[in-house]
């Protein structure tokens, strides 16, 4: 392998092969199952939306079929049969079910052929619509241009979508390329998606389809004014992961947090549930042209950045293989890592450069997502601003893709408007002044930086071998990642996992597999 670190290309290849085997083993497990959230996603993609007595219609319909013991066939079959039998739209059918005026399982099935044809027609129309959003994004970027990498990624988190709009528009004017609307902290554990525009949240704003629409329109408008396409990011994680992916695809989001393991480790979501959910979510994100961000950076908030760097790399390899199984191209893989070196550490900057450069060389086409210091931010905002400056320097020197700007007020409160301005100024100054520094730098052969990268890679390969030997499930049970132990049947959401019957049908998965040119699972044995 060429590059500045003289990495052992055989180790990198071995890591990829092992990670592929690990992911394929899990994929085998996934292919026999669905979840309530995947089935609700199917309904949303058929156009079902809205609430009845404050409960989302997709929840009412899916829970009804689960109670009736027929969800293993997939919600699509029952919904499409009702469409065939009544001549009504998916939305009308769902409303009648909610009002208890229609029972999906009591309707006769006169022609399975007609049911499948109906589903495929609706599926085709929705995927065409999602594809047209993707075209529209491309059109905007061509017309308006976009920011240079590393993209400046800024968060808004007021809890009120209208206040968020003001903060986001201000950030866009100051130079933001990506606006992420942080979710209200409890949302990942909800087994439903809230509805409508929301004005109250804690530590963030609820992800709802209406909130997506409001922010999308605001960013398109300010993007036209500043002559730059502003990307919108949200969080496709938690118990409603695939539903959020579908909402994002329908409302033209551009970036989604979407990790295979994050929910398991940091939100105690059941591992079976999350692994099944992520596969379908990523197909949607892939087809919608959405860049996913993975969450390895979080490992270093609980584990040490020096001791556990190899767990980040190992997890990146696994996330990459899961993403490939869902048809996600490398150019949409915002693999995560973080600047979490203890400031007390001598040569911490060198270790950080080694790790950031290593990620760059091992995943050359991925728009790497680089997270700012959080664990060692103290409330000393002046020192914090310098820590963020070093972080920005490492990013430009190692060619990162997405720069989650650090806030001097990290660990104090969600950002104030001027915190964002100061952090954009910090990044712009350093990126401008050191723009081509990476072209001028080589690392000393067998020097500290090269040695560090070799060590981390070697340890990552050992770890992957161990995970392969035990299976990913067992590795998670033993707390290999982030020092967090999770049991196979523990955590939240296991009751929402269902075994597919032989006649299970999800037309959107079939359609996405076809359009993404993925093999149909099961057919290859």
């Amino acid at each position: 392998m060429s590059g500045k670190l003289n990495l052992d290309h055989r180790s990198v290849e071995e890591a990829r092969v092992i990670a592929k085997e690990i992911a394929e083993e899990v994929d085998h497990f996934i292919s026999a199952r669905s979840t309530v959230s995947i089935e609700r996603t199917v309904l949303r993609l058929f156009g079902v939306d809205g609430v009845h007595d404050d409960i989302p219609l997709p929840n009412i319909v899916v829970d009804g079929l689960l109670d009736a013991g027929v969800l293993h066939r997939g919600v699509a079959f029952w919904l499409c049969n009702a469409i065939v039998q009544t001549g009504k739209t998916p939305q009308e059918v769902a409303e009648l079910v909610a009002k208890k005026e229609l029972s999906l399982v009591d309707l006769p099935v006169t022609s399975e052929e007609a049911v499948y044809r109906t589903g495929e027609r609706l599926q085709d129309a929705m995927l065409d619509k999602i594809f047209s959003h993707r075209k529209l994004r491309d059109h905007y970027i061509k017309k308006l241009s976009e920011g240079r990498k590393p993209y400046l990624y800024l968060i808004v988190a007021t809890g009120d979508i209208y206040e968020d709009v003001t903060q986001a528009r201000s950030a866009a004017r100051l130079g933001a390329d990506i606006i992420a609307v942080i979710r209200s902290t409890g949302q990942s554990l909800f087994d439903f998606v809230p509805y409508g525009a929301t004005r109250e949240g804690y530590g963030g704003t609820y992800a709802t389809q209406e909130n997506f629409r409001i922010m999308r329109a605001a960013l398109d408008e300010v993007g036209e004014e500043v002559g730059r396409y502003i990307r919108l990011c949200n969080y496709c994680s938690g118990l409603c992961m695939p539903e959020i992916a579908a909402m994002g695809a329908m409302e033209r989001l551009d970036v989604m947090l979407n990790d295979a393991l994050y929910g398991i480790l940091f939100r105690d979501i059941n591992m079976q549930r999350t692994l099944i959910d992520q596969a379908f979510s990523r197909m949607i994100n892939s087809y919608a042209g959405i860049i996913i961000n993975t969450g390895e950076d979080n490992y270093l908030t609980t584990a040490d950045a020096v001791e556990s760097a190899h767990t980040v790399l190992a997890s990146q390899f696994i996330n990459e293989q899961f993403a490939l199984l869902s048809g996600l191209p490398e150019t949409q893989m915002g693999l995560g890592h973080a600047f979490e070196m203890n400031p007390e550490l001598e040569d911490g900057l060198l270790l950080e450069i080694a790790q950031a450069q290593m990620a760059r060389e091992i995943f050359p086409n991925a728009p790497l997502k680089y997270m700012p210091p959080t664990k060692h931010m103290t409330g000393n905002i002046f020192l914090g601003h310098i820590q963020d400056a070093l972080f920005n320097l490492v990013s430009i020197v190692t060619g990162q893709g997405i720069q989650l700007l650090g806030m001097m007020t990290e660990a104090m409160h969600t950002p104030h408007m001027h915190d964002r301005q100061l952090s954009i100024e910090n990044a712009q100054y350093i990126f401008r002044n050191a723009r081509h520094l990476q072209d001028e730098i080589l690392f000393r052969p067998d020097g500290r930086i090269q040695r560090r990268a070799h060590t981390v890679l070697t340890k990552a390969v050992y770890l992957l071998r161990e995970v392969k030997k035990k299976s990913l499930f067992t590795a998670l049970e033993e707390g290999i990642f982030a020092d967090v132990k999770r049991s196979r049947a523990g955590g939240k959401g296991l009751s929402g996992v269902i075994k597919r019957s032989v006649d299970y049908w999800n037309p959107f998965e079939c359609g996405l597999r076809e359009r993404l040119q993925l093999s149909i699972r099961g057919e290859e044995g």
Partner: protein
Amino acid sequence: MTIDWSRIRPYGDTLDDGAMQLSFSLPVPYGEEAREAAKQLVGKMGLIESQVYHMKDLGEGYTYFILYANCTHSVDFSKIHVPKVEAPIMGFEEINQYIRKHIKRKIIVLGACTGTDAHTVGIDAIMNMKGYHGEYGLERYPEIDAYNLGSQVDNEDLIEKAIAYRADVLLVSQIVTQKEVHVTNLTELVELLEAEGMRDRFILICGGPRIHHELALELGFDAGFGPGTLAPEVASYFSQELARRKGLV
């Protein structure tokens, strides 16, 4: 130069100059009127001779200021009294010995990040085996049975577990907050315990970047610890307090 403890003012480079730095934003468009608005505002705060050294247009009709001024107010330092956790701080070995000698059984400690807060850095620093900043966490203490319940724990669940585990001590961490939700969470726990008539069964401790002992007492907790607290400070407090309550010392 003698400092008058009864009339303390901010210090820049000359005693009593009152020098202060401020930065803030106003929802007004950038311009000379914005500058004047910032100066008038700090004037009402008792700040004179103010100078706006930096102004930045934040867009959307907002402006950011960095401003220096001299404060005309003073405080009487000689009359200040701040309640603190009084227990002497012991080390790892000393604490375990203390528990063996006085309590004569393991102390059972439950830790949790309650409400919607998902940030476990604080509770982890105190509880985790590996600890933080060179100090082992409570899980490492042979004389302490420590259970870390993690984040987003409901107050009801915490109480249920506290009964099930027969806990002596409850540690509640609140890190990220918005619109004072940390206070609501903490108050709710105290109210729930009082409603069940169980408030006295536990030593109730809270911690986090916005917590201090005085606030903790106000909220009905037994003690509060701010940022940077290490496990021995907390363990020293609750082991001595438990011994005192049980009449063992």
